């Protein structure tokens, strides 16, 4: 269960989009476009660039960690004392793009080691539920 408990700290959202990767890349990296779907920001598509995302509930401190135009983007995401990393992956498909977002509760220096981990937390939840049932 060690792996699954680690992975409970990651959130993965994936979607098939009927748009080309280049266009999605613009929406992910141009500040005025990012503001339309995420938050107000001072993002720049430059390695190590520090930026913040602002919403009415507060701000998120970020830094660009990886940048591969039209393919992958990764930035740290620090809010409320939690250091996590958000990684976007764009994979071309016949109908457009498979877009994947993973937010993992890891420090930036660990992101390399963490890449490629599967989100096993639903399995963990199942184990947890079974355990709780046994405990009654």
């Amino acid at each position: 269960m060690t792996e699954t408990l680690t992975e409970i700290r990651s959130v993965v959202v994936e979607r098939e989009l009927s748009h080309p990767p280049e266009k999605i890349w613009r929406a992910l990296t141009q500040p005025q476009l990012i503001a339309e779907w995420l938050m107000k920001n001072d993002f720049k598509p430059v390695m190590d660039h520090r930026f913040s995302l602002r919403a009415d509930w507060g701000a998120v401190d970020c830094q660009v960690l990886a940048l591969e135009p039209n393919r992958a983007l990764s930035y740290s995401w620090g809010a409320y004392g939690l250091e996590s990393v958000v990684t976007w992956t764009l994979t071309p498909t016949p109908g457009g793009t498979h877009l994947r977002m993973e937010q993992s509760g890891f420090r930036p220096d660990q992101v390399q080691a963490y890449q490629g981990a599967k989100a096993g937390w639903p399995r963990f939840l199942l184990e947890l539920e079974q355990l709780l049932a046994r405990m009654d």
Partner: protein
Amino acid sequence: MPDSHDLLFRTLADPTRRAIFERLCRDGEQTVGALTAQAGVSQPAVSKHLGLLKLAGLVRDRHQGRQTHYCAQPGALTPLIDWTSQMAGFWEDRFDDLEDLLKRMDQ
């Protein structure tokens, strides 16, 4: 992220500590001695990890004679599960907004 969440995340971030907690989840109540035999670290180190797990509400201890028994409190993981669900919901909403934007970019 409230402090209790922060404590929970930090407590579970240490692999040795997490392994002790998982063992208690899997195998039920254990003495410090039994946990030490499996942990690959010294008894004082195991005791220290257990103290931190107890502080985060992840384990409960029970004294019996000269032995202390520990058992897992998996319910303490609820905030972590809630947080994960909330973040998943947040990103699902962002994806919806992103799709709307992509449609508008065509026009």
